[in-house]
């Protein structure tokens, strides 16, 4: 086992404390936004806007 071996293309070793996944945070926030908007669209427009909803 080579403990930190991470490929030949490594130009610098980044340890746990020096790493903040900023890009990941941005991507995941975008995903959150997409999910929320799409959910609202699907539920309120596609579903509730549809004909013959089963009611009590």
């Amino acid at each position, binding site marked *: 086992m080579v403990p930190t071996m991470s*490929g030949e293309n490594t130009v610098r070793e*980044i340890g746990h404390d020096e790493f903040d996944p900023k890009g990941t945070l941005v991507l995941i926030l975008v995903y959150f936004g997409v999910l929320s908007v799409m959910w609202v669209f699907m539920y309120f427009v596609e579903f509730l806007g549809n004909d013959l909803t089963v009611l009590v």
Partner: protein
Amino acid sequence: MSEQLESGAPTFLDKFPDEAAVVRAALWSSFIALALGAVFGLIQALHRTDVLRLIDSTDYYTVLTAHGVLMVVSFTIFFLVGLFTWATVRSFDRGVESIRYTWTWYGLMVAGTLMAVVAILGGFVPQTDISADVLFTFYAPMQAHPLFYGGLAIFVIGTWLAGADYIWTWRAWAAENPDERIPLQGFMVLTTMLMWYVATIGIAIAVVAFLLPWSLGLFDQINPLLTRTLFWFWGHPVVYFWLMPAYLLWYTVLPTIAGGRLFSDPLGRVVFVLFLLLSTPVGIHHQYVDPGIAEGFKTIAMTNTMFLLLPSLLTAFTVVASVEHGARQRGGTGLLGWLRALPWRNPAFTGMMLAGLMFAAGGFSGMINAGMNINYLVHNTIWVPGHFHLTVGTAVALTLMAATYWLWPQLTNRRLYSRPIGLAQVVIWFVGMGLMSNAMHVQGLFGIPRRTAEPQYEGFDFVASFGSVSELNLQLAIGGTLLFISTMLFVTNIALSAGTPKLSGIGQPLSEPLSTVDDSPEILDNLKLWFGIALVLVVLAYALPLASIIDRGGLLGPGVDPVPMIVEPVAATIEPTLGRLAAAVGSVVP
């Protein structure tokens, strides 16, 4: 430059030649199933869109049964046992306890698959009475040949023994290393197999107690809602059983390929424990629009299902962060500019990333499927296959193929035949699935049904709110064709790799996590505890619904009479005792 520069390290094959042979055999079984499944998939994609109809529409259902079973039972699960054998042996760093035992469970799985496949393909041969045109869900009272149910049972027994093999290795290791934490891959294998033991209770009861004896003629009535519910008891967790190999690869192999390290080992463990706990008590979400099940039970299943999103959402973060770590170690900078620093020419990397991207989309349609009442909109429409071709059909399938490009050299000491073809293959899959799945989702919203040879009706037309049905049909057919081409490229590439020269020292050690297991509480590794809680949750979720279904319809069917016993000659000679048992059960049922 190249990600495959020789590291000088030994490969898995160098260290564990016997185990490598089993892994290769399991992977080959998986690829054969994939290739056959792709042929059937292509036929379906062309047939139901009326682009090209090579077969009779009645035979469409034989094809569809074969596609479903080959893909989601054989392809995925054979890969899983191969990968898990590799991961267990690799992470505990010790061979299996008995290689004969290992070959035994593999042999059982092959035998079971062959039995089921013969029963299914018999559907094409009108001269035999063997057939199993029941689709991979085999809802009673549709009946398949006993060979089909028998094959499934033997296959599942094979997987149980495989699980026991991993546990055996773990216990042997633990005896020698009493104070060590379970290595991450081993942990993932073990939690997944424990989940499998919980999940398969449902299918085992459905098949062994009801469907198999019923197909042998030991009794002639059955409670369709009961066997259907037992099917879905297993049918949801099996989804995670398909997915966990992909997660294992994303957590433990992808970071290394990206040039980084896993962001957090403890969170990976938490995620797998959550899957063990929550995968099973949710199956009723496949029955949101079923009669005979109270709305309260459906609501409970929905709530559990929604919380089951959590481990996947956490995984998205952890995996992307690990990749970002790799990109930054490779010199990537900027808020998003690091994306350019990643090894996009490596088919293993690109394939897994594209698979993950499609999983994000599939995650969304899954959230819709999970939302109890919105299920009226999509239930049993082609939207649903649109969804799961993104999840199992891509997040899993594409990850497994991509990972093979990395893993195969470790198992054979040979390079991949062609990396550029591999790269093209994963991209073609992505494009093909983008087209096919998009068309399926949109068509589903028009109400176009799944599992239908000719979704064209005499009395009405589907109303397209955007695009047109024929345009979407074409999109679906083109997508399906690309997928077929991609599959063939993959299988050919792997087969041709056998002809490349033998190398030594091409081992690829995996990088250590950034946050290691030492940061996590020991209780995480208490597998007995989690297994126990998982069982309790299942009892809580299923005891009342099952009791109510049995109370309504009886154990053996909703007929008036207390189950007439019709024992056919074959059955009478094989299993007379079982027959009497069934009669006894029948007589106590109202």
